[in-house]
């Protein structure tokens, strides 16, 4: 199989590591070679969290090479754009439009451009940009902390993952038994968003 490269740009506390674990565990059970590159430490205090997920025999290092990212999951619009340079022009960007205002902006030390400007900039790296309010979908599922699972649903709907969508849903149920219903609903809402249902 061709290597599948995914980059996740997020803010500390948004659950990017769990997102990567859901995808990687499902892939492992399907017998696929996996490399995940995670950010720990300082990034957890509301800082930027960058996660790389790679599937296939060609995945050697833990980082997606610049220009070879197939899917960028932006858990927040600025964090989508921060990692857009990884994109292959043929890839897809999934961008959550819900903004998390960084402290330097609320202090008045930094500016945060409008979403429209951020999203049009994403389009300069690849044509296929899907922007939607994943946090609202998560809230609709019953809890806004399931935004990460909404994004998992969205990437599953793109049809690029090297395993069955059903296996991914099963992994969600196994890994998150306590909040299974909210998470499966969040997954389905993310999936439906991309499929247009």
């Amino acid at each position: 199989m061709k290597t599948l490269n995914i980059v996740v740009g997020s803010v500390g506390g948004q659950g990017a590591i769990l997102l990567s674990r859901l995808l990687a565990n499902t892939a492992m059970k399907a017998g696929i070679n996996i490399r995940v590159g995670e950010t720990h430490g300082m990034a957890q205090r509301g800082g930027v969290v960058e996660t790389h997920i790679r599937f296939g025999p060609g995945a050697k290092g833990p980082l997606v090479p610049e220009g070879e990212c197939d899917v960028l999951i932006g858990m927040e619009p600025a964090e989508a754009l921060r990692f857009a340079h990884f994109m292959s022009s043929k890839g897809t960007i999934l961008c959550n439009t819900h903004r998390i205002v960084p402290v330097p902006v609320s202090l008045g030390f930094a500016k945060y451009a409008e979403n429209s400007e951020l999203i049009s900039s994403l389009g300069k790296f690849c044509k296929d940009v899907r922007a939607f309010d994943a946090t609202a979908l998560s809230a609709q599922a019953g809890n806004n902390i399931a935004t990460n699972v909404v994004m998992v649903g969205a990437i599953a709907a793109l049809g690029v993952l090297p395993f069955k969508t059903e296996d991914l849903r099963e992994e969600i149920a196994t890994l998150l038994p306590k909040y299974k219903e909210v998470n499966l609903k969040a997954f389905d809402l993310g999936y439906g968003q991309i499929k247009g249902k």
Partner: protein
Amino acid sequence: MADILVSAKPGTQLLLLGNEAIVRGALEAGVSFVSAYPGTPSSEICDTFSRIARDAGIYMEYSTNELVALEAAAGAALCGVKSMTSMKHVGLNVAADALMSLAYGKIKGGLVIVSADDPGCHSSQNEQDNRLYGQLSYLPILSPSDPQEAGQMAKEAFLVSESHQCPVILHTTTRVSHAASQIKIQPKPQPKLKGEFTKDMQHHVMLPLNARKNRKEIIQRLETLRSEHEKSWFNSLSGNSDFGILTSGVSYNYVLEALSSLKLKAKVLKIGTIHPLPEKLISKFLTGLKTALVVEELEPYLELNLRAIAKDANPKVKLLGKASKHIPLDGELNTRIVTEALAAIRKKKPPVDYSRRDALVRKITLLLPTRPPVMCPGCSHRSAYYAIQKATKKSAVYPGDIGCYTLSALPPQRAMDTCICMGASTGISCGASKVCGKPVIASVGDSTFMHGAIPGLINAVYNNAKFTLVLLDNTTTAMTGHQPHPGTGVAGGGRKTTMVMPEDVARGCGVKFVEVVDAFDTKKVQDVISRSLHHDGVSVVICRQECAYLLNRRRVKTREKIIPYKVNADKCIGCKHCINDFGCPAILLRGDKVYVDAMLCNGCGVCEQVCPVKAIGREQ
């Protein structure tokens, strides 16, 4: 049910971080005693050991610092028990005193030291390359290129340690420690926690007469290790070309990916046995080469050694790497950097138009706000620093230390002027307070205090230094993942233990002015600090309050609801004092007035004290 890392059946696969793979590898080697002090990127090693200690039947302790951790592990290993310690790169500096002399002796039990480097300073104060400790200590170093190899090397390191009766350093970097991959589980033996101390005066007592003999022995040991490394399966030589690449660690993967994307051929030597280097294998690699590129992170360690070996093996070879500026000396590497180096050397066009991308990135950077890590909403450090600034009118010198609170160096607190190494707050204050002619207000966290600030405090009492040490006690090692420490009453593996209270330590050190205050009571903190400035000698002000992160974790369990604070817009005068001087991430600006984001508010209530017009109160 036992933890999956312990109970997983041989032959099955687990998705593990490099650090977790090291733990599993060590268990498969029979590790039975673990002592460590956490530090990114090594922390998941000790935390995983702590989590599984009971299930695995091993002993695990969080030690007060890396030096003690190494000494404890060595003590167990001297009694024949297989031991491991893990630390971040700078932790090995703390432990180096023990390391250099342990290297001279003989340890029968197997002792492995994991040193995790942080190229790129993801969460470190420097970029030191601990591979150089090999030359300094004469100890063997293994350096894995991915999580799978990290696990294998952890296991192998114990065999090497036992057969040579010396400590072995397992050297990782952030991109190995924090990379996850599928790991095949192998069988593991039962741990053996009971040992016996056997006297061996020559190898355990480093008197000069013994040290001189032992030095001869370790010189010989190095050569034996070198010949073993010539045959090690952690080194691989592949490809046939007159262009060669010498590499190690995670960079090996970048080399493979860059060669593949550029469709280039090269002879590649990947070294896993970093010290001592297999010189014959490197000579073999050099044979027939016209050009060789060295791809490694940080110091030109392989490069300088290659240069020395090439002098005899292939003096005509053109050597490229850091000296030729193809590979940078700073920061971590990635596939792009290696691709660009190879493209330049082999005159190929990179598959990606990097310059077009860089131009785009420069443009979008203007649109992007920076997002530095910040203290959490409800963090007691914010409250303490607010009071420090109020009490000292921002006019003091503020030596600091290492932890979440180092973020107070940034606006709006700007209450930290130095951050050097663990515990430096007290030592720096000893010197600065003697000469600077300004009040000196140092700050240190509870875990860092126990780790390294106590000798500095004793020194302050002894030498009559005059400064205030604010001890920010949130009863955890928050920065590295909330590990317990001597002040918490909890030990490794979740054991209940005696609490070593910092106020008792301070009094025991001879400090006369020791006060404990609620960190959320800004008026009280301010008052105590103001009084401490008039005390003739060193003062210790302990600002105590539970870490907001831990409080929230507890709230999830007890289902306690947070009652957020609210701004009365009619009363708010838009002075922005709560933003510009306090800076809680939950307080935001809407127009010219502030509001509290109820989702982010942690309900600590400090903003209510901070607001000059009493516009903030609890939501009813």
